[in-house]
């Protein structure tokens, strides 16, 4: 599995299409995106790990970085953001390759990617 992360609207899905050699329409069968939004439903570390394990079955997992702003005052938003960051770390540990896409440009953080 390749983990593709990066800021909002940085071109992550376009990069996934390039990596997998598929169209945007075909991407849904091979990759999953916005997985940062799935983390909030996990109440425990075990649930986060189970989520990371099931996501790892995809060829590419796309996660938007959202931990860069001010810590949210709202407890639920704060917890969701924390969970999203921890999920990213768990996914990176399971990934053979981790790529950060920035302004449409990939930077390999882990492993080797056939770009």
């Amino acid at each position, binding site marked *: 599995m390749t983990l593709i992360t990066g800021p909002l*609207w940085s071109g992550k899905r376009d990069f996934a299409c390039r990596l997998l050699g598929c169209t945007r329409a075909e991407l849904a069968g091979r990759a999953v995106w916005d997985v940062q939004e799935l983390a909030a439903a996990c109440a425990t570390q075990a649930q986060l790990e189970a989520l990371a394990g099931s996501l790892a079955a995809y060829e590419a997992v796309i996660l938007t970085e*959202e931990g860069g702003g001010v810590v949210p005052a709202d407890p639920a938003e704060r917890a969701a953001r924390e969970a999203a960051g921890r999920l990213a770390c768990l996914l990176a540990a399971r990934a053979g390759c981790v790529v950060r896409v920035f302004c*449409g440009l990939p930077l390999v953080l882990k492993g080797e990617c056939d770009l």
Partner: protein
Amino acid sequence: MFTLVIGGAASGKSEYAEGLLLARPGPRYYLATMEPLDAPAYRERIARHRALRAGKGFVTIERPVGLAGLRLPAAGDVLLEDLGNLAANELYSPAGAGPAGALEAVVQGVLRLRAACRALVVVSNEVFTGGRDYAPGTEEYLRLLAKAHRALAAEADAVCEVACGLPVYYKGEMP
């Protein structure tokens, strides 16, 4: 040479960007895109950046919108600061291109400038890692800036992100 320098607030991106042009013969132009509003916060900011540039030989040109129509006094090197302001001005300012034309005004404006100068360094803002819990108008602005970043990164010779004054290159080589 066209370099895109992106960084968070107070990341050292301006000083790094200035440094990219100092070894070149010049003339050096500083293209300031901030609308010069008469408010203390703006005056302080402008004064801080002027002090940073003092003695580095930059001629300041103020140009909040309409980059495509700009004529440089002479061929030289340009530091444009910053793309985030330019995008906001094109989107929101009465003199700007408005929602329908802002992306083209920003991207084509920068590319026209790139063709007219020897070296161009464009400074912009990393504002895309703090979630998307914004008002709808803010999201429109962020999408515009993200599109401009991707379009210009594709055209640039070098693209880097600055953290703590240190660049990470995503494209091209560190000079």
